[in-house]
């Protein structure tokens, strides 16, 4: 079984040493667990400065055949990131595999009225938006109505709920039910028979593999998927095929049309 990981990070952390600190160590761990590729965020784009962290990741990433850069963004495309053109240029040049949004930790609202420019661009490129659902501070719950409105308004944007916290199926299921472009990763999908229940109710297409390394052992998710009580064809979708499809659908367009 091969895996593609949607939720991986490298870089320093302010609360201590993490068990995987270098690209080589990450590649070794991926090899040990059968993970072929991973979407990778630089911790500094989360915990220090999104623009600087994005640049550092782009400059320092070596194993580009295995590690796909994730770009942290906020709705202030013009003010913080130099405008849509520059963002598109960065995405295309570095073959960014997903954009990650941290509404809690980066302190922005996430709704149609303020994130329309951002999501219009993502929608045009069919670029996945990964929403961090286990922030350093607070909970994602208050953002869910906005995420719902964005998912409805921009149906070509796959929205991946990353590390939706424990015991949150009552929050997640209505989104999965109403929005076919909303997905969940496996990183903290710890509910008893949670994967099996989502597969039965919404289809295996709605789950993408995510380990949350280095915060969590990658083996947790690998084992959860290997031992899931589902058909092998569904297991393959979760392990790699769904994310692979999302990545293949990305349109790396340097020029785009805003369709707000």
């Amino acid at each position: 079984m091969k895996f593609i990981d949607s939720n991986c990070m490298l870089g320093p952390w302010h609360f201590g040493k993490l068990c995987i600190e270098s690209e080589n160590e990450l590649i070794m761990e991926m090899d040990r667990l059968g993970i072929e590729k991973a979407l990778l965020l630089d911790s500094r784009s989360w915990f220090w400065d999104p623009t600087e962290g994005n640049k550092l990741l782009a400059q320092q990433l070596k194993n580009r055949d295995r590690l796909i850069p994730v770009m942290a963004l906020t709705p202030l495309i013009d003010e913080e990131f130099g405008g849509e053109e520059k963002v598109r240029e960065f995405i295309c040049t570095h073959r960014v595999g997903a954009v990650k949004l941290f509404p809690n930790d980066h302190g922005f609202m996430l709704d149609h009225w303020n994130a329309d420019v951002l999501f219009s661009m993502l929608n045009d490129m069919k670029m996945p938006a990964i929403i961090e659902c286990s922030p350093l501070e607070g909970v994602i719950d208050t953002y869910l109505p906005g995420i719902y409105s964005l998912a409805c308004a921009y149906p070509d944007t796959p929205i991946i709920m990353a590390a939706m916290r424990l015991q949150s199926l009552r929050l997640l299921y209505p989104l999965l039910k109403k929005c076919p472009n909303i997905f969940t990763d496996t990183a903290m999908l710890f509910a008893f028979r949670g994967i099996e229940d989502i597969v039965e109710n919404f289809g295996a297409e709605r789950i993408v593999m995510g380990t949350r390394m280095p915060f969590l052992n990658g083996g947790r998710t690998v084992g959860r998927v290997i031992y899931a009580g589902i058909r092998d064809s569904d297991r393959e979708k979760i392990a790699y095929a769904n994310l692979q499809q999302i990545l293949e659908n990305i349109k790396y367009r340097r020029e785009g049309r805003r369709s707000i």
Partner: protein
Amino acid sequence: MKRDIVKRALKGDKFEDLNIVDAHCHLHNLYSFYNPYAGIDEMIQEADRVGVRNICIAPIEGISCDFRLGNKHLKEAMEKYPQRVYGYILINPNFPEQIDEIFEEYYSLKNVLGIKIHPTAHKYSVCGENYRKAFDKVKALGGVVLSHSWQSADSNCVVEACEKIIQAYPEVPFIIGHSGGTCQGVLKAIDVVNKYENAYMDTCGTFFSNMHIEEMAAKAHPARILYASDYPFHDLRIEISDILFADMDDGIKTDILGENFRKMLKINPKRVNA
């Protein structure tokens, strides 16, 4: 150093040969979140999927509002799967007058291993007098104590409080459930299990600490770490995968997955089996 377990796990092998014991499980669901229904049949099905031989349960209702019903359901589950399901009787310290009665009715059941307490849920300190009444009975009758623990503002079951009981009852094996949970909690639990021979730490929920099992096993006396899943609160496959796939010697994994638990039961064997 043998590394066969991870190779087998990558193929989805069942580990019946390891006689895995899950030291800390529940039964049924809790009001505050939705999980698919978790009866004892469903739990056994999930244990079979990985090859977990024995599960040690404490029904959820017993650590929330109804310890009497919890103990009744514990008995029924053990009777239905006598070779597979073991358990801890549930004590609610807010009903001290019923502690004797619960012991009388359930403690002699063969598959009862000891008691489970949840000082946070019952808002009562692990060091409180009513719990001590139950600990005295475990000391006299044999068995083990499993306590929820969490290093937080709620002082009822921080590891330091558990340590006082561990120290006061050296004959009684005491499992620090969740190993204190947070990073500080796990570090403190490691100190405690390294200091007291009757102290054990279980693995469920320790992902909150960002400390991985490899580090725990390197820092703590490896014979004092017990595999536990907390299922169906969480899914069984999460915590066991943490160990099966860990970058760790197979011998240590085998001990954590069951050997340590079996040895622990010999320290203070129950003397009242029916």
